Each structure stands twice: as structure tokens, then as C-alpha cells.
């Protein structure tokens, strides 16, 4: 692997140089990333782009202060300049902080095994898969007007060394395919979207799964052509499995990230042990789901990833920490210190976050709802962690009448606030599923998984145009 040649003595020297004027903790994060992206539209593979980036970030912590410098040149002069930049920024005294000598590197290559490294698979084979997804989506109905299919893979090698003497080497391999379908009938246009992604090699791109995703995206767009404008008002909302998990991610998960908690900018600050959800709700963040899209063996501070219980029987049991916030709040790091690249400072971030499944069946949940809204897939949303208020667009939604899913509804949004929604969950089914996504925070995108079974929220505001 490419970073094997990176000299640990240089890492050691860089750490010492960063601590030359004091500070509590220094770290060097060295990265070598190689990726490929394909994009097909109008039946044509029009974008084939590969990229390789190498670089390193040097971080110095002093109290609650972070000093960070990065460079995309991995030689002694550039790393030295980055280390000097953070040392000077500290404006510390003349005495250096002692550094523990780096130990043997930890590595866990078996945690998320890769059978087919993407760089050993020909571009033409990946191109053929994207074309197959396009063909499948176009074959789903005469209404399909446009298909955008994308494929991306990346191999990221990292070396993380710090002033505690810890060294971690990790290789993360991810592959993902996405299909977006535009359907048109007369003047009505609707879209549908699906993805398949994993922390795996090309073996994750099972053709049958890819084709099923393409059909699902097309089906979503076509069915929504018959949609009526969604009504406005407060009603029971049934969230379908899989995509529904993004609501928990946005409306609750961000508020459990320890940076928001530390600043009192989260509704969950100071609520440990308190009731934040209905008693039937249990929730987790798990950075260690085998080959999960949001998984990796170590986080981007070299801390092993773990499964953290966030909510047990409706009570708050855990926050998500990086090293900085764990230290500040007197907790242990939870393996949630993540960054997009060496150009970014690590932050507390989710990995695969989910609400645990329950005893009901999805049919029972629907049947128990005389009138309500069925959100089959969500388009994305936004939340203010400070208030917990969120808004979600519904990509595929239906009316529930007399305990049955009936008319498709378009243009709906779900509006509410995190704790209230979790408290109003009154049924959870057992059809657990996970979806892959990219979560943005402070300008950094990281791969995350969201999971959920079908569940019901007894009352929620639906905003529509009808």
C-alpha cells in the first residue's frame, strides 16, 4: 500500500515540531486517496474522471483550542512548515511538550474485507454496469424521460500518528452506484432516486442489486406521476423502512454529536438519562457494521469504531464524541471523530445511525392507521440542532385511508422537532433496512448509513399544496 513507504520518523519529528511551543496533543494525519467517478446521462457515459490526492494535516490541541495546517506535499520541508504554522499559532511559551515515542502501528485489515479492489477492475467493466442500470431504468416504463446513473469508488490509505505514541494505519475502500430517474407524462414531471453503496470493493456491485435499484428509482418516479398535491395539516405519519432513517439522523442524531452538546447548542444537552423518546424507542450509532457504507475500522483520529447506544427505552444514554469533545466533557472517545480528507479538521460525526426494529409488521402499522400520511422515501432535509426543528421533503408519499395505502401525494414536507417526533412514535415494525448517504456538516461530507424499520408517528405536521 502506498503509504507503507511513509517514514514514521518523519511523523515523529512533525509531532515534536508541532509541540515545540507547548500544547496538549499533536497529531499528523497522512492520506493517499485514489478514486474514480463515472456519470451517465442521456444514455451516454459522459464523465469519466479519476483523481489521486496525497497530503497531510497537522493538528495541535491546547485546552479547547484547535490549530490545524495542511499541505499536499509529503516531504520534510512541507510537513515541517505545517507543524511550525500550528506551533506559532498557539502563541505558547518557549518550552516544548514532551512527546511519547511512536509505538508499533495498529492495523485491522480484516474488519471490512475487500475481495475486489476497485483499482484492479477495468474501467470498462464499471462502465458496463452503469449502462446496465440505465437500460434497466429505461425499460421500466414509457414515461421514463431521463436517467442519470453514477458510479464512484475510492481507496483511502491513512496513517494517523499522535503525541500519545499511537499509530494507526487503515485502508478504506468504498464503492457506490446511484440512479436518478426522471419520468414525464404530459406536463407532469417526477423524479426517483436509489443508491447501492458499501465499504467494500467492486464485489458490492452485485448486478441484481444494481438493477433492482434502477427499477425502484424508475418505479418511484412513475408512480408519482399520478400524485395529487399533498394536503396540509397535522396527521399520523408512517415512515417506511430504510430511507425513513434519515429523519432520525437529521432530527436527532446531529443533536447527539458532542460538539453541539458542548456548546449547549443541542436540545439534548444536559438530558442524559432523561426521556427523549417514546418507551418503545431504542437507537444506536454503529461504526462497525460489517462492510457498511458508513463503517471503517478506525475513525479519522485513530480511535477504533464501536457500537454506541444512544437511546434505550426512550431515555438518552449516549453522545457521539471525537477526542477533543471527549476530553472537554470528561468522556471516552466513541470512534466518531471523522473528517472528509486531510484538508479537514475531525468533528464528531455519525457513522451508521438507526432506530432499532420493533415487534409489529409493516402491514399492521398501516392497518392501524385510519387516516394518515405514508412517507415511503424522503428527499432530504435540514435541522437546527439548537432547537431540534427540522423540515423534510418527501420524495414518495401516499395517503393512508381506512388502514390502506391509497393515492400518491406530491410536494409534501414533514415539519417538526426532534424530541417531539421521537416521543410520538407509537408503533415500530421489524422490517429493518439501511440506506447509504453523504452527510454534510461544516462543509465536510462523510459517508453515513441510516437505518430504520417502518414506524408510525402519531401526529406530525405535513406541509403540502393541496
Amino acid at each position, binding site marked *: 500500500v502506498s503509504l507503507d513507504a511513509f517514514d514514521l520518523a518523519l511523523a515523529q519529528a512533525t509531532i515534536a515540531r508541532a509541540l515545540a511551543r507547548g500544547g496538549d496533543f499533536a497529531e499528523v494525519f497522512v492520506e493517499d486517496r485514489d478514486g474514480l467517478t463515472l456519470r*451517465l*446521462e442521456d444514455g*451516454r*457515459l459522459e*464523465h*469519466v*474522471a*479519476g*483523481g*489521486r*490526492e496525497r497530503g497531510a494535516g497537522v493538528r495541535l490541541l491546547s485546552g*479547547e*483550542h484547535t*490549530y*490545524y*495546517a*495542511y*499541505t*499536499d*506535499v509529503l516531504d520534510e520541508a512541507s510537513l515541517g512548515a505545517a507543524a511550525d*504554522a*500550528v506551533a506559532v*499559532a498557539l502563541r505558547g511559551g518557549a518550552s516544548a511538550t514532551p512527546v511519547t515515542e511512536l509505538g508499533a502501528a495498529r492495523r485491522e485489515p480484516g474488519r471490512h474485507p475487500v475481495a475486489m479492489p476497485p483499482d484492479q477492475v477495468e*474501467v*470498462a467493466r464499471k*462502465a458496463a454496469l452503469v449502462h446496465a442500470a440505465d437500460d434497466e431504468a429505461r425499460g421500466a416504463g414509457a414515461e421514463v*424521460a*431521463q436517467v*442519470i446513473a453514477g458510479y464512484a469508488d475510492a481507496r483511502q490509505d491513512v496513517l494517523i500518528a499522535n503525541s500519545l505514541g499511537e499509530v494507526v494505519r487503515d485502508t478504506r475502500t468504498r464503492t457506490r452506484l446511484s440512479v436518478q430517474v426522471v419520468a*414525464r407524462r404530459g406536463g*407532469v*414531471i417526477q*423524479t426517483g432516486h436509489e443508491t447501492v453503496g458499501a465499504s467494500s470493493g467492486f464485489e458490492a456491485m452485485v448486478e441484481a442489486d444494481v438493477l433492482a435499484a434502477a427499477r425502484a428509482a424508475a418505479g418511484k418516479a412513475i408512480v408519482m406521476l399520478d400524485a395529487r398535491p*399533498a394536503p*396540509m395539516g397535522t396527521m399520523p405519519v408512517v415512515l417506511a423502512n430504510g430511507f425513513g432513517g434519515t429523519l432520525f439522523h437529521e432530527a436527532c442524531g446531529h443533536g447527539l454529536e458532542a460538539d453541539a452538546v458542548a456548546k*449547549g*447548542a443541542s*436540545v439534548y444537552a444536559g438530558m442524559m438519562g432523561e426521556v427523549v423518546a417514546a418507551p418503545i424507542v431504542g437507537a444506536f450509532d454503529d461504526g462497525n457494521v460489517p462492510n457498511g457504507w458508513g463503517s471503517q475500522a478506525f475513525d479519522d483520529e485513530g480511535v477504533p469504531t464501536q457500537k454506541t447506544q444512544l437511546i434505550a427505552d426512550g431515555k438518552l444514554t449516549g453522545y457521539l464524541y471525537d477526542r477533543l469533545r471527549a476530553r472537554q466533557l470528561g468522556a471516552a472517545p466513541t470512534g466518531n471523530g471523522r473528517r472528509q480528507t486531510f*484538508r479537514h*479538521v475531525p468533528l464528531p460525526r455519525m457513522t451508521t445511525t438507526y432506530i432499532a426494529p420493533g415487534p409489529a409488521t409493516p402491514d399492521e402499522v398501516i392497518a392501524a392507521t385510519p387516516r394518515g400520511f405514508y412517507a415511503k422515501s424522503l428527499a*432530504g*432535509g*435540514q435541522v*437546527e440542532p*439548537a*432547537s431540534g*426543528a*427540522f*423540515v*423534510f*421533503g418527501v420524495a414518495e408519499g401516499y395517503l393512508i385511508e381506512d388502514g390502506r395505502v391509497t393515492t400518491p401525494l*406530491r*410536494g*409534501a*414536507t414533514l*415539519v417538526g422537532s426532534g424530541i417531539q417526533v421521537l416521543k410520538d412514535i407509537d408503533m415500530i415494525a421489524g422490517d429493518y433496512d439501511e440506506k447509504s448517504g453523504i452527510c454534510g456538516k461544516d462543509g465536510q461530507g462523510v459517508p453515513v448509513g441510516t437505518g430504520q424499520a417502518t414506524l408510525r408517528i402519531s401526529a406530525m*405536521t405535513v*406541509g*403540502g*399544496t393541496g
Partner: protein
Amino acid sequence: MFDVVDKVLGLAAARGARDVEAYAERGVSRRIKVYQGEVEQLVAAQRRGVGVRVFHDGAVGYASTSDVTDDGLAHVVERAVANAAAADADPYRVLPGTVAPPADVHPYDPRLAGATDERRIELALSVEAAALAADPRVRTVEDTVYVDGDGEVFLANSAGVRGSYRAGQCYAFAYVLAEQDGKVETGVSYTVGRALEDLDGPACGAEAATRACRLLGARPCSSMKATVILDPFVAAAFFGVLSSALTAEAVQKGRSLFAGREGQEVADPRVTLVDDGTHPDGLDSAPFDGEGTPCRRTALVGDGVLHGFLHDTYTARKAGVESTGNAQRGGYQGPPSVHPSNLIVEGAATPADDLVAGVDRGVLVTDAVGVHSGANPISGEFSVGISGVLIEKGRLTTPVREVTLAGDIIGMLKGIRALGDDARWVPGGSVFTPSVLIEGMSVGGS
């Protein structure tokens, strides 16, 4: 870095690639975050890299690297050639050949390079201090950030395009939390310029605080058809989404609500919408675009009528027109694609206070969440969550939240009845817009 781009062209020629473009960039940036009167985070960055586009019989391959050694350049050229071989051909995809003089734009102020960390920190602290001092109900300033960037780009291709420029900008923003009766509201504001001296830190902080505090006590209002006034921040978010539908790329691929509407009225005649890559104050201004075409001013909507779309070399050739110089790059890591530069909303201005005074019942919208996810640029339908202040009989009364605003984009543009005199630059898409008053919107509440 002309040496780097020239080497790339030489290596490509030696491999038999005839139509090649090389784009190199280098730059430095600073990001400083302060919290409770102290520096919470300081990031010093240097970046450098090169991207290569190879055109072969209508197929395009791209590759990029941060490794500009001879080995790195040989590898990136080889990869771009291989990627071109895997791509599908399109007869309109050809090497840009516009060898034209660049626009007379100088998006750089030498004072930027004179900024010291002391000055930057001082500026950021002035933002936070002003926010905290503005109102006793301000609980904290969750984020106070100062950012600047100073970079150079170098572009050359085998058809003779060759150019370079330096660009710089800086901005600061504050994200304020205010609290009353245990309920928290948030407010944000920005200050933007080409040099630190252009930024007004105290005004930015005070404005963010005011925006948070005036939402305190907000609750849902009843559903209604009403007049809304979108303040410049909210208007900028809507115009940003809408502008993605004004690219020829979106039109040609069948994902624009404006497709086939050229020459038609798509907005109230009071509205003019311009893309101007040459505006002296525009954050996205440059002498030429990401493939060497001079930047220019392009009328998109004039007096309510749709005039045209934004183009790069590819979409222009396909449509049989000239490129409007809107091939934008997000960095050396990816190929250029069509994007708006600086989007400017123009029209006769009404004093912003008079806008409110003329509304019998409506909402002044000061925050909208879900504009990017809740607005569909293909169908034009949108439904977003808003916060703001109720307007009753010409006066601002109760704050509202957990309310939705829904409609379709053309209906909204046609419903515009007035523009405020408070136009400003809003970063994050570089939009210059005033407050916008719109009649007949669906406001959904309890």
C-alpha cells in the same frame, strides 16, 4: 505553474493525444473560528494540483493529481487518456478553441496578502462581541468564522488557449443562538469582501443577533393564502435553486422547468435576472471561465421574459450559440461544468419598510430550511419550512415558525409585486438580491 501545464501538454502530445487541456491551481487559505472571546480553531492551508482533460473523437477523459512531480504528471496524463477511451462519444464535445482576450476583471485586492493572523482574529472577535452585546437574550454565538482564500489558476490547451489570474476573497459569518422562556431561535449574517478592510465585523454580529432575537416567541400561524416578503438571504436561496434550472445543461438534459420557454413571460415584468461573471464585486468574477472563455454579462430574464440560458463550450455548440463563459470549476479535482457565476436580481426598488407597510396580511420570511431539498428544479414545485414575522395591517407583529411555504417557482416569479432597496451580496452561490414581495403564496401552519 505554467511550467506544469506546459509539461502536461508536452507529455500528452508525446502520447499522441491531440486535444488536451491542463488546469493547474495553487493557493493558500485561512479559516479562523472564535468562541467566547478566544480562538477555537485556526486552519492554515496550502493547496496545489493539476487536472487534465483529454478529448478523443468526442469522448472526454479527466484525471487529476496533487502530485506535480514528473512521475505524477506522466501518470495523470496516462490516466486521462485511458478514461477518454472508456467514455462514450458525443459529437458536440470538443476542445474549447476560443482564443479570445480575457474580460477586464481583476478579482484580487493586494491588501488581502497583507492580512495577519492578529488582524483576522481581531475581526472575528469583533463579530462575536457585537452579537453578544446586541441583545441580552443572545445566549451564545455558536459559530463565528472568518475565512480568506488567495489563489492562482493557470490554464492552457493544445488549441492555443493560455491564461492565468489571481483571485482572492474573504468573509466572516456568525450563527447566533438567542433564548427566551427555554426556547431557542437562531440567526445568521455574513460580511463579504476582497480584503479584510472591506468587512464590517460589528455590523455582521449585530445583524445575526437581531435576526435570532426577532424570532423569539415564534409559534405556528394558521394556514392562509398570503403575501410574503422574502428577505435577501431567503430570496438568495430561492434564486440559487432557480438558477440551476437556467443552465443550458439542465435544459438540454430535460431537467429544467424553463425548457422551451424562451421568449415567454416567466416572471413579473418588474423582474430582471442577470448572470454577470465580470461584476467588480462578485465573488465568482474572473477574466475567463474554467475552459478559457472570457466571462461576460448574460441577461437571463429581462422585464419578466426569459431571454436565454447559461452555456459552456459543449452546451453552446449543441445549441448552436456562443458559450457565455459559465464553465465553472470547483477545483482541479474535477472537470468544469455549467454553473451560474454571480446571479443578480434587478428592478425598480421600493424602500424595504414600505414593502411591509403595504401588506395587509402576510409573513416576512427571514429563514427558510429545506430550500435545496424541498424545491424541485425540474418540476418547479417547492415546499419549504420557514420562520419569520407575521405582517398584520402593514405592521410586523408576532414571530412564526414550523410553518411551510409551498407553490411552484414560475407562479412565485409571476407573483412578485415589488423589490426592496436592500440588495446585497449573499455568499454560498454569489447572489445579489434585494427583499422580494410576492402575492398569493400558500402558507401552511396549524
